[in-house]
């Protein structure tokens, strides 16, 4: 894939909703500010993102203006299919030459996390976009060592620890997933179970 084609596809994803079995990933827009603040200012999220102060609307809006000026970043809101906003996720620092991209800014409401495989589905959808639609070679994730549950989930997907790094004066671990190691099949089987049970209930 050429860099121009990759940039064209990134622009396309920044402008349209991507639907999965249980969630929709909606491009982040100004009207989502209130939802973003509610998610980002939860205590556990502030700790995991090393966010020392409460995020304000002005700060988020400033960040959003910067986001609009970039062409290597896709930020989504996670919505339950036909329902409420439950989180955020992003693919950013997308190398136009296809070497690496970073997955992050992932926040899923603590209660929703336990009510269905929304975190898993958003992970798999973003990784499919990275590896299949954008043909990236490697996806990176940076995770605080204390965030054992997120580390555990990434390892199940195939991420491997690569190195220690520091962000905002806080130690983090960098985890990497190579395209050849991406094996969504076991988790897709789990998603299928939840899709089937929801369809049975709806029927």
């Amino acid at each position: 894939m050429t860099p121009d084609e990759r940039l064209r596809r990134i622009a396309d994803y920044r402008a349209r909703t991507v639907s999965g079995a249980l969630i929709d990933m909606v491009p982040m827009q100004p009207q989502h500010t209130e939802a973003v603040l509610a998610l980002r200012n939860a205590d556990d999220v502030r700790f995991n993102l090393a966010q020392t102060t409460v995020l304000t609307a002005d700060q988020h809006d400033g960040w959003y203006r910067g986001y609009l000026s970039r062409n290597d970043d896709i930020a989504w809101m996670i919505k339950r299919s036909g329902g409420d906003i439950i989180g955020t996720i992003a693919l950013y620092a997308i190398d136009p030459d296809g070497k690496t991209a970073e997955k992050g800014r992932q926040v899923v409401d603590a209660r929703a996390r336990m009510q269905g495989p929304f975190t898993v589905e958003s992970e798999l959808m973003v990784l499919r976009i990275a590896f299949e639609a954008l043909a990236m070679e490697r996806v990176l994730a940076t995770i605080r060592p204390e965030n054992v549950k997120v580390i555990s989930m990434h390892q199940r997907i195939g991420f491997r620890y690569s190195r220690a790094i520091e962000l905002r004066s806080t130690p983090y671990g960098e985890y990497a997933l190579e395209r050849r190691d991406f094996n969504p099949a076991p988790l897709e089987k789990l998603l299928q179970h939840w899709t089937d049970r929801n369809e049975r209930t709806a029927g």
Partner: protein
Amino acid sequence: MNAPPVEQIFAEVLGLPIEEITDDLSYDTVPEWDSVSHVTLIAILDETFGLRIDAEDAGEMNSVGGTKRILAAKYGVR
């Protein structure tokens, strides 16, 4: 065929010895109990006991003891 006890399902999903599966064991205290293992757990409880655990109840099943209480009170699993 008898269904396995709830503790055995927890042990298999979390990859822990059955001796460590006590009522006090909770989502907050066990690294292995992450969001993937939680939804796996709900799926296996569904299949094992022929249930369709409600999403609200799934959200409340954050300890072994709490899970057993909800299964007994709302789904008749003992």
